[in-house]
């Protein structure tokens, strides 16, 4: 297997575990090679029909085009449907590229949320300070890139509210998140400012359990599940797209719902 790009702070053991369920047995880059000839016949007339990298390159360009199409379709005011308590999926599935037992354990007492980039106030936030922020609640549908969905109940503070408090330059293009296990995520600013995008500290009105991202997850009901990072330890307001763990491996960047 090809050496994976090392992401700073990533536990290599977790990365190895990640391979088991979702990754192909062969090298990641081969994921299109088997399809390259068919692709050449269909979409890529004129391209080298054997070169899988060419097929992948073209497909990634179309995926980037799809980012733009989805950004154009995204409404900053259209709300994701909400549901009654009775509709909540119990239990909400745990899902990550590692087993639940390997989920990060973050010490809430020493935890500090790092804030960086285009913001006025870069003071780190303790969990007590974060918990003191105004609380909103949502019962929305989590849609996984795999296709399944589940309805959950999340409480926390609107990300837009927090961005206002830290004096973020909301003309910036992106907000980047870093998680305790090394997972990363970049979202577009319009989504960051969407009224339902939430810095989440509770699940079903109880402090987030470890499985669901203690001490903080970013709940974004307008995006696929993998764009909802858990165990968030740092965020940066930036004009540089730094991608993300899954996006860098081929999942669509925007992944809007």
């Amino acid at each position, binding site marked *: 297997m090809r050496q994976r790009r090392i992401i700073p702070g990533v536990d290599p053991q977790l990365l190895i575990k990640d391979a088991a369920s979702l*990754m*192909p047995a062969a090298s990641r880059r081969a*994921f299109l090679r088997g399809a390259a000839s*068919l692709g050449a016949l269909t979409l890529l007339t004129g391209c080298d029909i054997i070169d899988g990298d060419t097929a992948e390159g073209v497909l990634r360009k179309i995926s980037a085009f*799809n980012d733009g199409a989805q950004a154009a379709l995204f409404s900053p005011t259209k709300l994701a449907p909400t549901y009654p308590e009775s509709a909540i999926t119990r239990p909400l599935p745990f899902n990550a590229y590692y087993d639940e037992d390997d989920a990060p354990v973050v010490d809430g007492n020493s935890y500090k949320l790092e804030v960086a980039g285009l913001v006025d106030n870069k003071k780190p936030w303790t969990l007590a300070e974060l918990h003191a922020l105004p609380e909103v609640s949502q019962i929305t549908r989590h849609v996984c890139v*795999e296709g399944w*969905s589940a309805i959950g109940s999340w409480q926390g503070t609107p990300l837009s509210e927090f961005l206002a408090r830290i004096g973020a330059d909301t003309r910036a293009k992106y907000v980047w998140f870093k998680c305790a296990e090394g997972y990363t995520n970049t979202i577009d600013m319009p989504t960051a400012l969407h009224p339902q995008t939430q810095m989440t500290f509770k699940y079903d009105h109880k402090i987030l359990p470890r499985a669901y991202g203690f001490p903080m997850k970013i709940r974004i009901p307008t995006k696929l599940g993998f764009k909802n990072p858990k165990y968030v330890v740092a965020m940066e307001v930036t004009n540089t797209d730094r991608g993300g763990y899954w996006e860098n*491996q*081929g999942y669509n960047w925007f992944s809007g719902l």
Partner: protein
Amino acid sequence: MSAETAVDGNRIAVRETVHPLWVRVTHWINALAILVMIGSGWQIYDAAPLFDGLRFGKSISLGNWLAGALLWHFAAMWVLAINGLVYLTLGIVSGRFRRKLLPISPRQVLADAKAALSFKLSHDDLSRYNAVQKLLYAGVILAGIVVVLSGLAIWKPVQLQELTALFGGYDAARYVHFFAMAAIVGFLVVHVALALIVPKSLRAMVTGR
């Protein structure tokens, strides 16, 4: 689309164009797009199967893993949708759908189905569809519309939530999408088999005659 020539006062039918160019072009673009959509769709299905025991496997699906399959699916969707819109527009505007596919009489469908199953159905005149063909061609166009709309409902259950609701919600829309795919695959099995049994029909879709 029929060309007729008068010779010595008698009207002799010159072999007529069965399929105009736009039908042939959109047919083959659609054929390739739908194969990519089905192949990659099967790989996507395998990531979260709807039915216990039903997996398609890597050998007959496209993309090798979920991200690869999604890249294919969301690339070919443009080809399928744009080509499909061109086909539907021209089919309606030219009157071809009305002329070729309507009316469909249930009694005639039964009679032609019986004849087909006893190998007594004639394919001498390729320009005229029998009732079973009319039903299948109209049916697969409908399935194509449903598969695209249910696909949009799954892809954008927030931005297009009204459409998703129309299908009974996100989870129900996944089943609709699956069964529309299954209907198209079922059609393809019959369609390809018959095209091979009656090769001149295949030739007509290439050369027009």
